[in-house]
């Protein structure tokens, strides 16, 4: 009896660690990135920017390839024809009125896209998270979070920047059933929350669970948030070989 009790104790102690040893924080991030990064994609969508005066809407078309390449074209009246070409370490902006290209590198990647709460890196970059961050569990067991009245079981992770990155610290809640990032809090070096991302809608597209509606809340400005809605996403589509060239940008 004493021996059975001893084995039960061992089992009780080891079971959680055996179960959760099956997946590491790094593996969770890789699975989440599988949902977020596509070989190629085309989409249309809109950003609804809310501030204290009300809302403004910007519509866009986007073409993307992997982690680094994206061409975003604004289609709303105010910014119609303005384009952003995001490559690995640089951004090119195209302004049709001036027929001019502006090339930005370095810190400019962290700047706001067209008055939204998203930076260029929020939209396209920093998807190779494991290259840029060390990742660890905040909670070793999945936690329950509630978004819009629905409860999700999520891995709760902490990311610390290895070098200069847009957000030196991140806290992520990744759905344990489909590895979708359900919630994220982006923090400064001092640990202060700068932005909060809440994923409001997920669709299954080409075998992936893809967030198609999410809300970025600016934690430093009262009543400031940007809702990002992807209306028509196609994954693994054929792209022209020159899709991310300066010729395409300036056309």
């Amino acid at each position: 009896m004493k021996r059975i009790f001893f084995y039960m104790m061992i089992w009780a102690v080891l079971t959680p660690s055996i179960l959760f040893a099956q997946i590491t924080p790094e593996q969770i991030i890789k699975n989440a990135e599988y949902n977020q990064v596509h070989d190629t994609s085309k989409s249309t969508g809109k950003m609804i920017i809310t501030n204290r005066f009300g809302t403004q809407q910007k519509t866009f078309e986007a073409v993307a390839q992997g982690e680094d390449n994206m061409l975003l074209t604004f289609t709303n009246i105010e910014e119609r024809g303005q384009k952003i070409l995001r490559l690995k370490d640089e951004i090119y902006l195209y302004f049709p009125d001036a027929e001019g290209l502006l090339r930005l590198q370095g810190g400019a990647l962290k700047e706001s896209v067209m008055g939204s709460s998203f930076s260029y890196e929020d939209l396209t970059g920093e998807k190779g998270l494991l290259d840029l961050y060390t990742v660890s569990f905040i909670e070793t067991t999945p936690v329950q979070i509630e978004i819009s009245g629905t409860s999700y079981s999520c891995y709760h992770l902490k990311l610390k920047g290895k070098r200069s990155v847009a957000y030196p610290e991140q806290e992520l809640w990744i759905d344990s059933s489909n590895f979708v990032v359900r919630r994220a809090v982006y923090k400064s070096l001092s640990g202060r929350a700068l932005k909060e991302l809440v994923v409001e809608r997920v669709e299954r597209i080409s075998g992936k669970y893809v967030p198609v509606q999410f809300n970025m809340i600016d934690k430093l400005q009262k009543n400031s948030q940007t809702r990002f809605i992807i209306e028509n996403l196609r994954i693994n589509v054929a792209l022209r070989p020159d899709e991310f060239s300066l010729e395409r940008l300036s056309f």
Partner: protein
Amino acid sequence: MKNICCFFLLILLFVQAVYAEVVTSVEITALSGLTRDENQEFVIYEVGKTALNFDSVGNPDVRAQLELDTIVTEAIMPDVKRAFVKVRFPGFRITAGKTRESWGEGFLFNAGDVIFGSMDPIADLSEAILRDETAWLVDLYVPLGQFSHIEAIVLPYAPGSQSAEILNSVHDMRAGGRIVTKLWGIKIEGGYLFKADQALHHPYVSFQGNLFFDLQLSAALQLPAEDATPEDIEDGFTVSFGLMHIFSTDEAGTWTVRMEGALRPFGSWEEVEAADEDTKYGLLLYPEIDYAPDDFLSFQLRSIISPIDASAVISFGCTYNIYQGLNILATVAVQLGDEDDVFGWDREGDVALLLGLEYIF
């Protein structure tokens, strides 16, 4: 009156022709100004600017645009700002019509802008884009990879020409080309324009890279086609340079810092007595600081400084994007300097206050 009738007829014809795949937008800017006239009396004025745009959509390989601008005061001044078709064929693309091509590097000063010229100072710093002249042109663009291309251009009329003549002598046209590439992270551009109307060769080179700041440098020569003297070479040598940096802090918004310079190494490096418009000083500077405390409000402090005669124009502006498509504009500008300086007090427009509303719909 004939011009106005033609202008509106053109609108009607174009609307009929492109009723289907077109996006239309209207931009109206209503400005109220206070300034001083040549007698140093304060005067007020109202001016309206309108831009009616028709943009083609639907065909990914064809882009066309018609932009009809008017400046409305007591009189109406219509202008076809843009009317062009851009077509992509396999291996090349062609642009034909009235539009803009930006060559070289620089926001205000750009020695590489051999098409329109961007080395002379301007007095009005209130516009969002300081250089946006257009011209009739035909442009052939051949891409050579992701970052490289060669380009050939023909301009039948000199940009800004007020001539009403449609038929222009081939001896009065302009033509040239450029090559753009990227090497070791630096964008490199070299080009040439022959101005037959002035009998001038105009080659240039431009470089753009990043070393904490986004940096750019352009240099150009303007040489007479015949009998060029060493003095001609010196007078036609211009250099522009610039740096820009955007940075933000967690709580203090976004700052954009820009500094550009227009250098004429063989220009006047001492103040000229009784200088006139032909006086070319060796250096002009354009510092600019933009500050956006949030996503909708921005402040701009801009200046053009002529250090050799110690004169300057300083402009402080504010733009508030309060509702979708609506901007509230405010600018105050002042010129400092003597009567014969590049900028000066006690001359027409030496102080100006501008308030306005801009709406795009």
